[in-house]
């Protein structure tokens, strides 16, 4: 059969199945193969928090969305061009993400009475029930064919059925004319110790690929040509790994050893895991007895001279609040990484949200300002972590990195940087007692930056005491009313003065005009796509996406003044917009909020803007 190969700009593929079906791996392999092929990519895992929810039910459906393109790709895509559904439940729960002309690939073997019942279908025709009867459906007997494939080569068909995700992957590779080479290489490495498994996976992948080439349902295939990327060495990176590496990079640049005290919590655990495997660069990790010990061991390590880090998600940040106040009071460098998830309380652990901003800004007793930085993409997590560590150490204060589950688990190709292009980090470590001090004064400050010095235990003649009680500049406990006010103000100034160091706020698109759209953190890709789409529609907008939340870039007021209307988009009930209202009440702000544990959809952003234009 002759296939026509059609060029497409970009394509979104959503792999869905039971949480035991290996959809995360299948999606990752497709994404990696595309990246190696030269496409730009963005990925979004969407999975339940139960490791194995009841098989075949809607609750147990796990998904992984991949967006690949021959141009720049900013988001994992809103709706999909191809849906792979390994069972009826997966089809049912993902039908809402289909584009009107989407292709659906299903394992038709699972659409038996039992499967349909488990997914809650009333009739025997799932497609009619979901009103997707006349679509391009590839109903492949994936289970049967996988079993047959393995039977032919003398493998145990029952255990081999777990390879059926590779059959589906093979179909997708054929559909998009992608080489199998990268995936075969992966098998070779991954199953190095069990050649039998390597062989099984290879066979099933190829059978899926060949099957797709032989069926009528696939009349045409597509190709997403490699994108024009800046030359260089690339790798895929997800946000959690990028945070870990950014911290390690800051450790190297500063010469301060990296210490991470943490407690496992979804979706931040992978940062601790990543740091734990990199002892070769001197990283020390401590899996603590609880979240509080996580931050307290980090504070101890900071006092002793380490670049100290604790990683967590919202509930953990709540538990760390008191100790974070201690770090503010003791004026010690500390990086607190919060990979946000849907709250409050335990909330929806595996879903993304931006609902910890208020907590990061205000969630402590007393006058307790903390610097807050928010990464905007998986690879940008490297920069955010690096600069958070730099500012924490150079300014002797805690810095919160507000990442998001969407960034932590999402991945994109990253042009590998050279460390020589990153700035030095020079913490104010002091090693001799100044002549004008009879003993070391721990809170004597640099008058320009309000930054005190870092005196490490073990250094002769710098013995001093720090702690949670208010103290004067000499480090003596003081409840003098004026000393307290002065110290409160100086600690606040120290944070505010960071604005002199952080980059100016940029505007993407129109530099002045009617509408400025404002956002922060992980919504960047969606905002960028919306901005270019709006401009394509002839609507003149600018986008100010904030990486630096506290302090705000020093030109923020100037940015806002250039526009008639400001609309703030965020995945919470309005934390950032209310912060802006408090900081800059001279402007009026419109807001668009979503609290569904899901990222924005580009069209909802453009529609919201269209409404205020009309």
């Amino acid at each position, binding site marked *: 059969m002759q296939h026509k190969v059609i060029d497409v700009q970009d394509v979104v593929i959503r792999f869905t199945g039971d949480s035991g079906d290996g959809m995360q791996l299948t999606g990752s392999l497709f994404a990696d193969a595309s990246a190696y092929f030269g496409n730009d990519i963005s990925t979004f895992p969407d999975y339940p928090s139960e490791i194995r929810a009841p098989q075949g039910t809607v609750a147990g459906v796990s998904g992984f969305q991949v967006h690949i393109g021959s141009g720049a790709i900013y988001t994992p895509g809103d709706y999909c061009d191809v849906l792979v559904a390994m069972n009826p439940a997966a089809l049912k729960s993902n039908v809402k993400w289909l584009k009107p002309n989407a292709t659906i690939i299903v394992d038709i073997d699972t659409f038996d009475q039992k499967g349909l019942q488990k997914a809650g279908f009333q009739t025997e025709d799932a497609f009619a029930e979901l009103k997707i009867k006349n679509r391009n459906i590839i109903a492949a007997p994936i289970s049967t064919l996988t079993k047959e494939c393995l039977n032919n080569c003398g493998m145990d068909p029952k255990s081999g059925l777990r390879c059926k995700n590779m059959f589906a992957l093979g179909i997708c590779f054929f559909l998009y004319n992608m080489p199998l080479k990268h995936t075969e290489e992966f098998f070779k490495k991954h199953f190095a110790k069990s050649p039998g498994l390597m062989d099984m996976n290879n066979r099933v992948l190829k059978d899926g690929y060949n099957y797709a080439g032989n069926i009528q349902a696939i009349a045409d295939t597509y190709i997403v040509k490699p994108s024009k990327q800046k030359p260089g060495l690339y790798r895929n990176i997800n946000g959690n790994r990028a945070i870990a590496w950014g911290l390690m990079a800051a450790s190297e640049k500063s010469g301060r050893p990296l210490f991470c005290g943490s407690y496992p919590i979804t979706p931040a655990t992978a940062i601790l895991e990543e740091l734990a495997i990199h002892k070769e660069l001197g990283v*020390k990790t401590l899996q603590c007895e609880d979240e509080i010990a996580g931050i*307290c061991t980090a504070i101890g390590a900071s006092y002793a001279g380490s670049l100290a880090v604790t990683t967590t998600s919202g509930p953990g940040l709540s538990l760390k609040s008191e100790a974070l106040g201690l770090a503010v009071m003791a004026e010690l460098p500390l990086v607190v990484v919060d990979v946000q998830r849907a709250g409050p309380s335990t909330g929806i652990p595996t879903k993304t949200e931006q609902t910890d901003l208020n907590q990061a800004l205000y969630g402590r007793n007393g006058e307790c300002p903390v610097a807050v930085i928010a990464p905007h993409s998986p690879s940008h997590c490297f920069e955010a972590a690096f600069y958070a560590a730099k500012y924490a150490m150079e300014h002797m204060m805690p810095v919160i990195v507000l990442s998001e589950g969407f960034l932590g688990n999402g991945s994109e190709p990253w042009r590998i940087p050279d460390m020589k292009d990153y700035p030095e980090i020079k913490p104010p470590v002091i090693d001799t007692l100044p002549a004008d001090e009879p003993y070391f004064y721990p809170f004597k400050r640099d008058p320009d930056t309000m930054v005190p010095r870092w005196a490490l235990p073990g250094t002769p003649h710098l013995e001093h005491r720090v702690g949670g009680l208010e103290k004067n500049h000499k480090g003596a406990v003081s409840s003098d009313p004026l000393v307290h006010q002065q110290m409160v103000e100086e600690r606040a100034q120290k944070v505010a003065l960071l604005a002199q160091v952080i980059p100016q706020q940029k505007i993407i698109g129109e530099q002045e005009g009617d509408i400025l759209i404002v956002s922060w953190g992980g919504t960047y890709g969606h905002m960028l796509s919306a901005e270019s789409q709006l401009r394509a529609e002839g609507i003149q907008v600018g986008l100010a996406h904030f990486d630096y939340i506290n302090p705000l870039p020093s030109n923020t007021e100037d940015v806002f003044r250039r526009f008639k209307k400001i609309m703030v988009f965020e995945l919470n009930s309005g934390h950032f917009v209310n912060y802006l209202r408090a900081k800059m009440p001279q402007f009026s702000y419109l807001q668009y909020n979503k609290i569904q544990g899901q990222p924005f959809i580009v069209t909802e952003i453009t529609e919201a803007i269209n409404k205020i234009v009309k």
Partner: protein
Amino acid sequence: MKFTPQDFKSDQEVKWCPGCGDHAVLAAVQRALPEISEALGYSHERYVFVSGIGCSSRFPYYMKTYGFHGIHGRAAAIATGIKVANPTLSVWEMTGDGDSLAIGGNHLIHAIRRNIDINIVLFNNRIYGLTKGQYSPTSKWGTVTKTSPLGTVEHPFSPGALAMGARGTFFARTLDMELQLTQEIMVQAAKHDGTALVEVLQNCVIFNDKTHAVISDKEVRADRTITLRHGEPMIFGKNKDKGLVLDGMRLKAVTIGENGITTDDILVHNAEEQNHGMHMMLCEMEWPELPVALGIIRKVKDRTYDDMVRDQVIEVANKSNIRCMNDMLRSGATWVVE
């Protein structure tokens, strides 16, 4: 290096109540440090005193050493971070029964379980002093306080038993007024590799006065306590005529010379026995049935957490080809865009 206790006294006015047992512990520690420095070759700047919240947690302010006055209950975690970050430091945690057995109980047992090489001095006065007289996790059953007007209805913690349960490698007990014994124990705690837990039975003169008096009063102390020394028979009493023997599964106090008991029948203390069964029984001895044990009850060898963390880092670094961040960034799967 030669130091005197004066070298460890800060210029801060000591603000504990007159008659508080804490003064004696401070004096004993300040006397112990010169001895430790000489024995272990520690310089002055190597000492770090860490505390939580409570009366005894003011301790670091009175020491002319590095000090960290933390938050309630978290001293063990802060001390752990300091020690892991820089294992060459001599790290001391000063804490109370509320600080380390109530709000900080979790950190205490995990520090002991990890056998991190820090010294924990637990001031046990069986009361909350700084908040002015509420019962603590070590208050005896029935203790009447402001928050237990009809007497407490909960069992007290036994710090020693807790340490044994967490597989502690060093546990000692002393009385605040036994300055010489306290000093001796501090030196031994410092020399021990691993978590050394030292319980000081300490008097709160304001809110729980004479809580330990039944065993600590001068006239009765020799008969109601036993100071254990490794390798020596468990003999006590004003006239050194009482001793401990094993009676079935229990310890029993006997008088030498009565019922045919001779010195040879008396148990010999072995603080270095790995099995903590006997140590647990010694920790749990209570007057009037038995004398309260003082001295070093348990001191056994084991690997320390901080050493092993450091060794893993060295081991991996020696094997790895990754020497710097640039190596690291380029490791694993990468591809070139021309």
